[in-house]
């Protein structure tokens, strides 16, 4: 089995995207107290001859106006040399907005995110999950006005070792995002925000039986155009990550693209 098969798809649906958060990056949004967010989503990734698709449902609850928690339930479909599909790794997460500054038509805020991914995926090859637990910590800042949006986020993911002695390299993710609302809309009208994200990923070398693997880890940068369309309590978020720079260690396939579509209801 190729190491790539273990790593492939591990970055999809890597963090919950609440409300007006970026499509791929991390934003500071939480959910109103007592609110429920239901967000079915589909992500796909292509690396040379391999293509993976992950369907997921994210359920989030607003514990307070500044604190939300939820669960991600993925379903994975992998196609390539071998095909496999089934439940992916379940994750739980919590996000706390520790700072908020409001003025007329403007909200600035900052949040921290904690996420735990468990080894709950189905069997077969290629594997549908990493086979290990993983933890992710994130910090995000956001500025939102009637016209302009900007976000900055950083996440660090620590991966555990699976029962074959393999540990995927830890990952650092950086996001810088800008957005614009070209047409001002009223509360009950459809609303569109256009986004451009710059997503950077630095991955440590993976480890097998204590040995660092030469053909693993490295850096990739993506430019990701996206759209955020909403109508009252319903949102559609979509984006494509296009690799623009890559410095991977050894011999590894570079990511061609990733795409993500999220439907979101606030109830």
């Amino acid at each position: 089995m190729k190491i790539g098969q273990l790593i492939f798809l591990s970055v999809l649906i890597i963090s919950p995207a609440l409300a007006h958060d970026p499509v791929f990056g991390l934003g500071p949004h939480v959910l109103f107290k007592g609110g429920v967010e239901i967000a079915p989503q589909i992500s796909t990734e292509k690396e040379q001859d391999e293509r993976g698709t992950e369907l997921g449902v994210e359920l989030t609850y607003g514990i307070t106006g500044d604190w939300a928690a939820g669960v991600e339930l993925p379903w994975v479909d992998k196609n390539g040399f071998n095909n496999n599909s089934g439940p992916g790794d379940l994750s739980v997460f919590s996000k706390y907005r520790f700072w908020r500054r409001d003025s007329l038509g403007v909200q600035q805020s900052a949040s921290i995110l904690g996420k735990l991914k468990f080894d709950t995926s189905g069997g077969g090859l290629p594997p549908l999950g990493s086979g290990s637990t993983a933890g992710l910590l994130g910090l995000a800042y956001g500025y939102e006005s009637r016209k302009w949006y900007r976000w900055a986020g950083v996440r660090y993911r620590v991966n555990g070792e699976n029962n074959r002695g393999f540990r995927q390299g830890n990952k650092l993710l950086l996001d810088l995002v800008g957005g614009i609302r070209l047409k001002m809309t009223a509360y009950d009208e459809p609303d569109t925000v256009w986004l451009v994200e710059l997503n950077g990923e630095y991955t440590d070398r993976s480890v097998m039986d204590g040995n660092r693997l030469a053909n693993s880890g490295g850096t990739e940068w993506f430019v990701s155009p996206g759209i955020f369309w909403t109508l009252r309590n319903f949102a559609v978020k979509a984006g494509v990550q296009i690799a623009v720079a890559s410095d991977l260690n050894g011999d590894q396939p570079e990511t061609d693209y990733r795409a993500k579509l999220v439907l979101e209801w606030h109830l």
Partner: protein
Amino acid sequence: MNRMIINTMLILLSMSVSMLAWATGTHYEIRVDGLACPYCAYGIEKKLTAIDGVKNLKVDLENGLVSVDVSDGVVLTEADMKQLFEDAGFTYRSMTTSHPDRDQDKTQ
């Protein structure tokens, strides 16, 4: 006789109009900071319309105004609104009330 019937009808009509005006209760205009997008403001709609007697919610994003009509006997206090908007993720600033039937304004 006809004059008496017309007068009675006019009195009844004026009473009906006055009762309709009374039934509109109080109109509240609430100034809120942080209102940048319509989707995020849904929490405000959900929380305000969950209060018995609150209706005709309008959100003016450009001016940071949320307005509602409430039935007679229902009162939205400043303390309640501060908490409600905090729970919705925004900052309450001030509130103006008016009684359409009495044409009387009051700022809290």
